[in-house]
């Protein structure tokens, strides 16, 4: 990933940011024994309140109370263990958009003592196959909107059972029936599914039968679970491009919840918040903020499955007293451009949390002006469950990613792995209870990024006199398209397999809309009649949409180093000159 000599990091004297409020290295006490304990205690406490409300673009909705979350999660856990015969530690892949089924399944998997494998529903079969084989998932829970991907995946993975979810599952009967049929027959979004599956509703009722008839005790599944047991496998490309599972334990995630709580304390009223969950819950950002943090704070998460077009959010925002919006730059910017939002920003809004990509200062300022509330920017990565730094609500500094969370130590390292000189930027290294246990079954990869408990983020940061951090640049060649990591290697591998392609290099270029865009430079084989469109078509077959190069340039040769390594940096510099876009991701 870098040229830095990792052995030297151990000799580095820790130069950690130590804000007065949260001394670095302070132990973070876990508010719960493990995640199932969090679910149970939260659901007991707020039993009759709404925990989740899923809202469709036409305003139809379904509610889940905390009591029902617990009941259904127990049923799903019993289904996994009793009906499907899973054991503690078995992996269950969940591939769902934001819907009422998501929390039930996610919590159900954890309550069964199994490991949750979050999977992007937009993945292609090839990406699914890699992730399921790597994680060794035995069960797949997938939304019917992508049911056509199941059959090709089943043949080539160890998936034994598939649970098919409808977007409207757990809605009340009539709205659910009508909405489902609108989706199926008017929008025609439900493809035929030939693979053997069991419906989510059926899974729940079978689980219920086990609970009632055989008086199964769900709590027993996790009675022996320790905080350091694996809870979630969260896939990320890391720095090398091969998708790897970051092993997040109960402790990692609960610590992050406690750390967020400490940072926002006083601005979140337990049992009274209504956060918008428009970021996908399968992504670590919304997973930890919405599904874990706000949930345990007794909040009512308003779930939106698809924010495209953005007007899909109008009913959700108008019909519910939205008080928090965790989001990314593109979302905030897009909402500000919607007249219905800018004219009548949510009246109960208290604050918003930005992550994923750099928040543009102009967007932050406009948001504050229009909504009268701040966007608190933070920084995190999958490997850190994810939050590392977050601005304090009362001392928010636009342009900064804030201060390290409670119990989180940070260091800046220079190119040689030594502590960067004071005031100089350096690679951000993190140590804290939220740092992952490692990459699933990849000790060498883990050793590359974790040294003596310090996680090397690959991001270059600066730190000011008050301990506030600012991200300067990305060290890796990683391209971030709308918050999605795109690994040039992966895209290059894909294009290289396209008939007629001799050589390829992929770089990221600044893009006004998506932060960065993927650009491919392709050299065709002699005599091959290759077009840019063919390359893009090829990519579309094998890669999720956000990874497909937006621009493909055919050229005679690629710039190379003396040893024949393609110089991406040179291509990028060259392309940036011709590229009229100004201001990069850190703008």
């Amino acid at each position, binding site marked *: 990933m870098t040229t830095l000599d990792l052995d030297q990091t151990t000799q580095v004297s820790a130069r950690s940011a130590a804000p007065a409020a949260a001394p670095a290295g302070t132990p973070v006490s876990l508010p719960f024994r493990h995640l199932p304990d969090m679910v149970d205690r939260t659901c007991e406490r707020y039993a009759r309140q709404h925990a989740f409300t899923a*809202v*469709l673009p*036409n*305003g*139809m*909705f379904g509610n889940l109370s905390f009591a029902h979350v617990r009941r259904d999660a127990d049923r799903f856990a019993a289904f996994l263990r009793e009906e499907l015969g899973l054991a503690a530690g078995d992996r269950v892949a969940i591939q769902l958009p934001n819907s009422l089924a998501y929390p039930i399944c996610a919590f159900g998997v954890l309550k069964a003592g199994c490991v949750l494998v979050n999977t992007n529903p*937009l993945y292609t079969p090839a990406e699914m196959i890699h992730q399921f084989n790597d994680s060794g998932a035995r069960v797949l829970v997938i939304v019917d909107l992508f049911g056509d991907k199941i059959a090709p995946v089943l043949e080539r993975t160890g998936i034994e059972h598939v649970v098919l979810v409808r977007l409207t599952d757990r809605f*009340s009967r*009539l*709205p659910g029936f*009508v*909405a489902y049929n*609108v989706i199926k027959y008017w929008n025609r979004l439900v493809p035929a599914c030939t693979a053997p599956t069991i419906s989510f509703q059926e899974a729940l009722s079978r689980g219920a039968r086990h609970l009632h008839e055989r008086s199964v005790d769900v709590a027993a599944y996790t009675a022996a679970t320790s905080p350091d047991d694996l809870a979630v496998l969260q896939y990320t490309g890391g720095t090398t491009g091969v998708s790897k599972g970051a092993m997040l334990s109960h402790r990692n995630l609960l610590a992050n919840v406690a750390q967020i709580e400490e940072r926002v304390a006083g601005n979140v009223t337990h049992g009274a918040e209504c956060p918008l969950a*428009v*970021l*996908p819950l399968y*992504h670590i*950002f*919304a997973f930890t903020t919405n599904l874990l943090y706000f949930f345990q704070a007794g909040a009512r998460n308003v779930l939106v499955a698809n*924010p*495209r*077009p*953005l*007007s899909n959010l109008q*009913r959700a925002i*108008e*019909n519910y007293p939205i008080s928090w919006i965790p*989001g*990314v730059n*593109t*979302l905030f*910017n*897009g909402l500000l*451009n*919607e*007249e*219905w939002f800018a*004219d*009548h920003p949510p009246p109960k809004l208290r604050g918003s949390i930005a992550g*994923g990509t750099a928040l543009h200062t102009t967007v932050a300022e406009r948001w504050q002006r229009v909504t009268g509330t701040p966007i608190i920017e933070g920084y995190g990565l999958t490997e850190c469950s994810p939050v590392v730094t977050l601005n304090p609500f009362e001392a928010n500094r636009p342009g900064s990613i804030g201060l390290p969370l409670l119990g989180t130590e940070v260091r800046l390292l220079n190119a040689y792995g030594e502590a960067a000189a004071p005031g100089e930027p350096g690679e951000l290294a993190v140590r804290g209870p939220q740092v992952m246990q490692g990459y699933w079954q990849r000790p060498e990869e883990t050793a590359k990024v974790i040294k003596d408990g310090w996680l090397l983020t690959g991001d270059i940061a600066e730190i000011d006199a008050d301990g506030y951090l600012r991200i300067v640049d990305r060290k890796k060649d990683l391209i971030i*398209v*709308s*918050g*999605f990591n795109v690994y040039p290697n992966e895209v290059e591998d894909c294009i290289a397999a396209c008939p007629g392609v001799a050589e390829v290099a992929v770089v990221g270029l600044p893009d006004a*809309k*998506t932060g960065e865009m993927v650009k491919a430079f392709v050299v065709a084989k002699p005599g091959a009649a290759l077009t840019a469109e063919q390359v893009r078509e090829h990519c579309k077959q094998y890669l999720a*949409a*956000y990874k497909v190069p937006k621009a493909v340039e055919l050229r005679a040769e690629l710039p190379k180093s003396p040893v024949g390594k393609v110089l991406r940096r040179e291509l990028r510099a060259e392309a940036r000159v011709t590229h009229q876009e100004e201001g990069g991701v850190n703008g």
Partner: protein
Amino acid sequence: MVSQTEQLLLALMIGVIMLGMGASLTWRDFFRAFKRPQAILIGFASQYLLMPAIGFSLAVALQLPPAIAIGLIIISCMPGGSTSNIFTYFAKGDLALSVTMTTFSTLAAFVMAPLWIFLYGSRFMTSEISVGMSSVIVGLVVMLIPVVIGMFIRRRNANVGALLELLGGILGVVIILALIALWVPRNAPLLATTPWQVYAAAVGVGVIGFFFGFLVSQGVGLGFRRATTVALETGIQNGPLALSIVLLSFQGELANEIALIPVLYSLFIVITSSLVTVFFRRQNELRQQYVGALL
């Protein structure tokens, strides 16, 4: 031409449709419409300056006989019809703006309709024309009450609101199709004997209204969505009101002759509006804001 029971049934269905339309609205939508009064003003101007002028110009240009011309003048001086709201809804236009404009133009019709009918009509005929406004008020109430109830229902329960909206939408399409399907065969003899100039006037007044309404709105920068709304509002007139005015003011053969264009207009406007709506809907959908995948 339309039986009593059919009229009642129609009014009832319009009521259900407007209930559904209302269920898609909030008070904020109306605040937004009022926050930008230029859209309302442009709509008002194109309703009462543009349309009467278009009607009069067509009558002159096509050299229509006086009785036919009066019919055209009357239809062009009418306020917006409630069907404009339904088409605006389907076109994904600004429904609150449409409802607001229909309400304003209907209230203004007390003064504006007789004024313009007198000004432009006197060239063709000098007889007294009584504009019966009681039916206008009834029409407005029939339209507005369900809208308000629909809004209230959505506020109380978004699921019931969404179901009503869906029902209203389906019923809207059914009515549009039924109007065309029932009306054409029944009036086939009339359609066969009508000279082309009359067709041109009956179809043209609506289409030219769409065109200029859209053009003017785009010209002053209302934005595409509001421009589609103003266009539909301008071109779609309150046909039933025109008919009742004709039947109230004239008798016998003359009444039939004058009613010709209002009747033909009412048929063709459903067809032309449907076509325009399909186009506007697609364009409005394309103009929605699609941000890239969020994460």
